[in-house]
């Protein structure tokens, strides 16, 4: 009996990976119901398996969202299981009516948000070219972040907060973001540099700490052995660093 139980216990991993089938699956699930340690182990391994799944994310086909949302609006939901009912009390029976109300409300909210976004975009970017450039930048940033060889470097600036760089060797690019860095004060700015033996090249200004979330900066032509550094510079930035970097991240892969 204990031997069989031990044998079954070894199935936790395969079970969490959905690799157990048939009679053995039924047997294991029966065992699981009475084995708290097994259930706890399966719970943890399922979380691990889920993370293996999360990293496979790819953009779903464009039409899928509308189809799913439309299907949901005509699909009745299951009531809580009896186990949960005991804990929560009896369900209310008005679920269907709520659907009819929520769609138009959602659409209205979405349109309002879309309008706000457009206004903001026009306000921030007033020429077509700039808009195009910004979009191209977003795409380049997304490409670096999704690069199969993307590597993360994190640093703690001397002024506080964190800096995260996602570096793709194949693209020779890095995306640098900051979080919780204090305002440099006195109208000064944070400037990002690509630094190597030849010197320091500006990769642009980091947005102020009041922008939330701070927008990322894309650094081009980042080679193995280079460093990414952030300095405090006068408003508008400098052509070369004038202060000691508050943080340095290695870009070598």
């Amino acid at each position: 009996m204990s031997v069989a139980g031990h044998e079954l216990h070894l199935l936790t991993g395969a079970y969490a990976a959905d690799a157990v089938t048939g009679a053995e699956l039924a047997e294991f699930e029966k065992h699981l119901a009475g084995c708290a340690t097994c259930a706890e182990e399966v719970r943890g391994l399922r979380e691990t398996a889920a993370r293996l799944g999360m990293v496979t994310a790819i953009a779903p086909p464009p039409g899928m969202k509308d189809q799913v949302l439309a299907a949901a609006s005509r699909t009745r939901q299951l009531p809580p299981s009896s186990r949960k009912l005991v804990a929560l009390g009896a369900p209310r029976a008005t679920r269907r009516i709520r659907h009819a109300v929520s769609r138009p409300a959602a659409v209205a909210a979405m349109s309002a948000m879309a309008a706000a976004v457009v206004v903001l975009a026009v306000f921030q970017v007033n020429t077509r070219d700039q808009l195009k450039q910004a979009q191209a930048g977003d795409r380049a940033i997304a490409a670096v972040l999704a690069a199969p060889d993307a590597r993360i470097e994190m640093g703690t600036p001397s002024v506080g907060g964190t800096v995260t760089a996602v570096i793709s060797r194949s693209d020779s690019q890095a995306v640098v973001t900051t979080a919780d860095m204090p305002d440099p004060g006195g109208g000064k700015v944070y400037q990002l540099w690509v630094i190597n033996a030849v010197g320091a090249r500006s990769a642009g200004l980091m947005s102020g700490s009041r922008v939330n979330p701070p927008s990322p900066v894309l650094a081009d032509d980042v080679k193995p052995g280079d460093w990414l550094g952030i300095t405090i510079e006068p408003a508008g930035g400098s052509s070369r660093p004038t202060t000691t970097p508050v943080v340095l991240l290695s870009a070598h892969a």
Partner: protein
Amino acid sequence: MNTPSTSALPDGAGQAEGPGQDLGALLARVARGDHEAFEAIYDQLAGPVYGVARKVLRDPAQSEEVAQEVMLDVWRSASRFDAGRGSAVAWVMTIAHRRAVDRVRAENASVAREQKLAPGPVSGEDVAQLVEMALDRQRVRRCMSSLTTLQAEAIKLAYYGGYTYPQVAGLLGVALGTVKTRVRDGLIRMRDCMEVT
């Protein structure tokens, strides 16, 4: 403004929240019929759900079908999610993976499916989310490389390949018991590795 089902929440809580919201709380709202919460869940998890289906099934059309079924399943059975028994992400991804492997097994996985770990393009626009995913991919890669070859192969074939563990044993030419323990040891090592990094 809000739907009656979200009246317990502050005004406007159903809007303007980007990715990164607490999925468990969103699922609770979905269970009450909240379509906005469902849309937020879709935005966060449709990419991974579709990705895992593609990983296991390969065929884009079938993967889309499965991904749609999974998302609809999330809508239908949101009330069955129990935060005490695991995270919302694990709940959804378990549904997704099970449905994908069920589909593979239903139509006989006799065709050898090539195994690759390389992820495709990431969905979503949100940079914070993308950074998080890049970080996760890096962790998974690093932790996977800390396993023995046999552990890593067994896990990839079982999880990404959708093979049963006896099939994995056949593919790797090792005993059933060996695969059983390697998948378990390997996942435990992955779990511990990803916890500390």
